[in-house]
């Protein structure tokens, strides 16, 4: 089954505390990704982005001086970019466009625009039936998922902390990571950090940084003639589950079950085939739930499965090798940077954090309050 489309270029914008504008960061990432691919703006006839304004793709097209034949601004939080890969593959295969840029940029740390209450629109049911009770958004939802998970399976906060500890180990190997120079993180650091919404502390939560990224997709045939080795899109799948905090009956089972199943089926692969995994780590619990849902281990097994260094550098399941949203960069909607890191691993460009011989990578985005789930499988061109 698989697909006939490849990622031909990938890049980050400046990260961290940039003092730059949203559109400035986004244009920077797009420029770098096109340069990486050996393409120019004139080659771009498809554009997908979100989080810029109400007319996100239109806004960026205008900023770049483009008149694209295809755009997508599906708003789905952090998983939107994995969804855009699927839509872009379909648009390219259908002949609607030939070269798609997927991009994102945010200056949320410089602009201090992040709020503990999140953004709840007054006409939604959540505004009437949930916001009055004061949940932190999105943290309290993930906190309830974590509490329910630890209760059901008898896990501990210390076991959960391994996700953050391992992410820091990877960040120490990545010069671009926000926490690159800050030294290792211990389990005691994580559980002893200030509590936000029990059982999650500040160290269980992703960073708040500026940042952005872009990837360029085109047909595999064309990508083979470009500057970089093509990274093939092997499969994709998605599942959208909820906006409210009460819609999902079992907090411990996410829509990644469906998105992963679809992606693996399309690619003709199984979890055992994955060499490197970039899994959205908005919170430590997000990773635990996602690993189980994707089938890397059984229900209730993830805390034991990740113990003992398996997901750290040198372990047999390299996970979130950039340092992730927890220790590398989290600009609000992190999904595009999962793709950038997966591409770099498959191209062998990751220096100290390179996973030797990586041929198959998984990127999995999660948006909102475990609301949207999208899986992409990528592979080297053999």
């Amino acid at each position, binding site marked *: 089954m698989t697909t006939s489309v490849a990622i031909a270029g990938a890049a980050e914008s400046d990260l961290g505390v940039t003092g730059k504008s949203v559109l400035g960061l986004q244009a920077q990432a797009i420029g770098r990704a096109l340069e990486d691919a050996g393409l120019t703006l004139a080659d771009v006839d498809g554009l997908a982005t979100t989080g810029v304004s109400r007319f996100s793709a239109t806004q960026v097209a205008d900023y770049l001086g483009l008149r694209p034949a295809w755009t997508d601004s599906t708003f789905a939080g952090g998983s939107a970019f994995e969804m855009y890969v699927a839509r872009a593959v379909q648009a390219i295969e259908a002949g609607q466009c030939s070269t798609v840029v997927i991009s994102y940029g945010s200056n949320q740390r410089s602009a201090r625009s992040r709020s503990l209450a999140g953004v709840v629109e007054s006409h939604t049911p959540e505004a009437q039936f949930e916001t009055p009770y004061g949940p932190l958004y999105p943290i309290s939802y993930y906190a309830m998922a974590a*509490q329910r998970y630890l209760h059901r399976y008898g896990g501990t906060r210390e076991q959960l902390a391994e996700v953050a500890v391992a992410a820091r180990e990877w960040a120490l190997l990545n010069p671009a990571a926000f926490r690159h120079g800050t030294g290792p993180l211990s389990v005691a650091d994580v559980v002893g950090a200030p509590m936000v919404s029990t059982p999650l502390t500040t160290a269980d939560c992703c960073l708040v940084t500026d940042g952005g990224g872009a990837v360029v997709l085109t047909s595999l045939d064309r990508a083979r003639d470009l500057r970089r080795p093509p990274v093939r899109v092997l499969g994709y799948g998605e599942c959208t589950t909820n906006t409210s905090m009460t819609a999902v*009956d079992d907090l411990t089972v996410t829509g990644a079950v469906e998105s992963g199943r679809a992606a693996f089926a399309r690619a003709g692969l199984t979890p055992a085939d994955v060499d490197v995994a970039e899994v959205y780590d908005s919170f430590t619990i997000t990773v635990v739930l996602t690993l189980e849902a994707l089938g890397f281990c059984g229900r209730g097994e993830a805390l034991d499965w990740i113990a003992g260094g398996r997901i750290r550098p040198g372990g047999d399941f390299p996970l979130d090798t950039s340092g992730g949203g927890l220790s590398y960069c989290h600009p609000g909607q992190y999904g595009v940077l999962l793709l950038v890191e997966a591409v770099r691993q498959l191209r062998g460009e990751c220096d100290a954090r390179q996973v030797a011989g990586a041929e198959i990578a998984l990127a999995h985005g999660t948006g909102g309050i475990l609301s949207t789930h999208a899986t992409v499988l990528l592979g080297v061109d053999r």
Partner: protein
Amino acid sequence: MSTEVPGGGQVPDPDEVTAPWWDATRRRVLLVQRCAACGHAQHPPRALCTACGSPRDLGWSEATGDGVVDACTVVERAMPGFRPPYVVARVRLAEGVLLLSNVVAERPHDVGVGDTLRLDWRPLPDGRALPVFVLSQR
């Protein structure tokens, strides 16, 4: 328009679908929407049944007010209008539906999964009330 919650946030005015649910809170009655065609119960109230799709057969039943903690968290960070620590919980009503609510408890950190709950009310200035829960005495 919206109504301030004492020491809390704001509660928007009801719409045409949710008005009966909020009106009942003035009488301190908790309603659950139920479909006469298929028997499905759902919350929050909607304009159609999410089980069978019927837009015509939705009515209301009164909840007993008994519930169980499905999951909960103690919020430790202050948001504008709220005073931590307080318990936010998914409450499973005896009728089967989940509600987001607060569990009002002297020791918030002692509230846990499976605790049995009893309905209580937090009055709003406009005469409506928010359903909240307390630990039931055993």
